C-alpha cells in the first residue's frame, strides 16, 4: 500500500516520514477498524456497509471543515459552537422547507446566512475584543441554544424537503448516496482552497505566526473573522444534511457533534496550535471516529463500555503522534 504512495525508490528516511505521517496512521487505523469489524462480525466490511458508514461520517466531516480552518488559523482557535449552530441550521431549514421541494433553495440559503451571522459575532468578539476563542464560542453556544429555544418555542416543527432526503438516503452512482459525493467534492475543494489559494495561504500564515503575518501585510483580523464565519456556515450546512438524514428535527439534533469535530481535526494531524495540517486528515479523522462507533455498536457492547472504549482509543491514537514537546529539548 505504501509503495503506491511513493513511486521513487524510498530511502529509510522517506519510509519513516510516510509511516509517521498522521494522515497515514489515521487511514491505517480506519482500515484496521474495518478489518477487525469484518473478523468480529462478518459483513461489517461489506461494500454497502462501508458506504453506509461513510454516509454517516459525511455529516461529521462537513461540520469539521470549519473546525479545521479555525484550528489552522491559530491563536488557540477552536469553535465550540459548531454543534449548536448545526442544530439551529437544521431547525431553521426544517421550518422553511416544511416538506416541500419548492422551498429547498430558500431552506438552504437562510440557515447558511444565519450561520454566517453567528460566525461573524464569534469572529468579531475574538478578533476585536480579543476574547479567547474557547470562551467566546462557549458563550455563543448558550446564545445560539437560546435563539433555537425562542424560535421554536420549545417544540421544533417542519420537515426536510424530499429532494434533500433523497440526496442523503437514496443510493446513486456505484450505489453511493449523493451526500457522499457532496463530501468528496468538498474535500477536494477545501484542500485545494487551503493549499493553492491566497485565502488559504493567508490562513496558514496567520496560524503559524500572527506577528509575522501582520508584518507581511496579511490582514490578520479579517482572516480570523472569516475563519469563524466559515466554521458556522459549514456547521449549518452539516446540520441541513443531517436534517435530510433524520427528516424531522429536535432541539438537540447535532449538539453532540462539537467535540467529535475537534477530535477529527486532531486525529487528522492538524496541530492544535495552528498553522500545520489540512482538511484531508480531518476527513479521515471523521471516518475513524464513525467507523469506531459503528464497530463498537456492532459488537453489542453496552453503551457504558462503548463510551469508555471510544475514549481509550482516542487517547491511544493521540498518544501515537499528538504528543507535545518535552520541556527539556
Amino acid at each position, binding site marked *: 500500500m505504501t509503495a503506491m504512495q511513493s513511486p521513487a525508490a524510498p530511502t529509510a528516511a522517506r519510509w519513516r516520514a510516510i509511516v509517521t505521517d498522521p494522515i497515514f496512521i489515521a487511514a491505517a487505523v480506519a482500515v484496521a477498524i474495518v478489518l477487525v469489524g469484518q473478523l468480529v462480525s462478518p459483513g461489517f466490511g461489506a461494500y454497502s456497509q462501508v458506504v453506509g458508514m461513510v454516509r454517516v461520517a459525511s455529516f461529521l466531516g462537513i461540520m469539521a471543515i470549519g473546525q479545521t480552518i479555525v484550528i489552522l488559523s491559530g491563536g488557540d482557535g477552536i469553535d465550540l459552537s459548531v454543534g449548536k449552530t448545526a442544530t439551529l441550521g437544521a431547525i431553521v431549514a426544517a421550518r422553511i422547507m416544511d416538506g416541500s421541494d419548492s422551498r429547498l433553495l430558500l431552506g438552504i440559503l437562510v440557515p447558511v446566512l444565519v450561520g454566517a451571522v453567528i460566525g461573524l459575532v464569534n469572529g468579531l*468578539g475574538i478578533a476585536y475584543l480579543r476574547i479567547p476563542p474557547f*470562551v467566546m464560542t462557549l458563550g455563543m*453556544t448558550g446564545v445560539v*441554544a437560546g435563539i433555537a429555544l425562542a424560535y421554536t418555542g420549545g417544540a421544533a416543527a417542519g420537515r426536510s424537503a424530499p429532494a434533500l432526503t433523497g440526496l442523503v438516503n437514496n443510493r446513486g452512482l456505484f450505489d453511493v448516496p449523493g451526500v457522499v459525493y457532496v463530501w468528496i467534492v468538498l474535500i477536494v475543494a477545501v484542500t485545494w482552497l487551503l493549499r493553492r489559494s491566497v485565502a488559504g495561504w493567508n490562513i496558514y500564515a496567520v496560524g503559524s505566526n500572527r506577528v509575522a503575518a501582520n508584518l507581511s501585510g496579511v490582514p490578520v483580523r479579517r482572516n480570523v473573522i472569516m475563519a469563524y464565519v466559515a466554521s458556522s456556515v459549514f456547521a449549518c450546512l452539516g446540520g441541513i444534511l443531517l436534517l435530510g438524514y433524520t427528516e424531522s428535527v429536535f432541539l438537540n439534533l447535532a449538539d453532540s457533534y462539537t467535540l467529535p469535530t475537534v477530535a477529527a481535526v486532531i486525529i487528522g494531524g492538524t496541530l492544535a496550535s495552528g498553522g500545520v495540517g489540512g482538511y484531508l486528515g480531518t476527513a479521515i479523522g471523521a471516518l475513524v471516529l464513525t467507523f469506531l462507533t459503528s464497530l463498537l455498536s456492532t459488537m453489542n457492547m453496552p453503551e457504558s463500555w*462503548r463510551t469508555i472504549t471510544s475514549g*481509550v482509543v482516542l487517547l491511544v491514537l493521540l498518544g501515537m503522534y499528538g504528543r*507535545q514537546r518535552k520541556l*527539556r529539548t
Partner: protein
Amino acid sequence: MTTPPQTTVGAIRDGSWQRYLTFSLSTWVTIGLLIVVTALNVALQPTFFTTYSLTSNFATFAPLVFAAVAQAVVVIGGGLDLSIGSIVALASVVALTVMDGEPSRVAIGVLAAIVTGVIAGAINGFIVGVIRLQPLIATFATNSVFAGAALVVLPKPGGMVPSTMTTGYRSLVIGIPVSVLIVVLAIVLYWLLSRTRLMRHIRAVGGDRSAAFASLVPVVRVQMASYIVAGAFAGLAALAILANTGSGDPFVGSSMALDSIAAVVLGGIALAGGRGSGIGAVAGAIILAMVSTVLSFMGVPTTWRQLASGVIIVAAIALSVVMSRKDQR
C-alpha cells in the same frame, strides 16, 4: 474604597490592612457583577435573605461552586479539564453505591467520593503531564471514559442517599444554613490551598512553564497534582449533588464542565493560566447561578430565558476579559 484599584499589592507595605482591600481590576469586575446580581435578586425576591431561601439557593449553588474551584486550580496551572462533570458523576454514583442508603456509612461514602475524584484526577494528570497530550482533547477523551464508568457503576438513575445527608444538608447550625457553610468551606479550602507551596508552584507552571522548569519547579509533578486536587474538589461537588438531590444519576453534571469554565472566566481567571484565584471562581459560579434565578423572577418567558441568560453571560465574560487585559498593561 480609599485604595485606588490600580495600585499594585507590592506598593502597599506588607501587614497593612489595605492589602486586603487591594484587588486587580478584573477582581473588581467580578465583585461588581456579584453585587449587581445579588441586588437584583434581593429587589425581585424580597425573601432572599430569609434562612429558607438562603438554604435552598445555596444548596443548588454548592455543586457548581466546588466544580468551579476544581476547574480554577487546573486553569491557573495552565490546563483545562473538560472531564470535571463526568468525574462528579462518577464520584457521586460510587459514593451512592458505597453508602447504599445506610446513615452509618456516610463517612465511608465521603471518603469514596474524594478517593474516586483523586484517582480520576491522577489519570488526567498522568495523560496531560507525563504523556503530554493537549489538555482540551485529552480531558475530552477521559470525559467519555469517566462517563462510561459512571454508567457501569449505576446503569440508570436511582438509589437512595442516606437521609442524614439530605436532611443535614438543609438544616441550620447556630442559625446559619449548612449549605451556606459548605460554600464557605469551599472558600476556606481554597484559601488554605493557596498558602501552600504546591499552589505557588501550580501558579508558576501556569504562568510560564519554561521559567518554572528553569527555577527547579517539578513541572510534570505539579501539573499532575493540579488535576489531582481538582479531582478531590470534584469529589466534594459530587457529595453536594447527592445531598441536594437525594438520589443518584449517572448523567448528572453533563453541563458542569462548561459551566465551571464559564464560572472561572467570570471569576477573573485568565484561561492562559497563572493568574486569578479560586475564590473568584466561587463568585463566578454564584453569579452564573443567580442570573437564571433573576430572569425567572423578572417574569421572562421560559422560552426566552436561555437566550437572555446567554447574552448576559457573553456580555459579562467580554467585560471580564477586557478588564483583565487592562491589568496586564
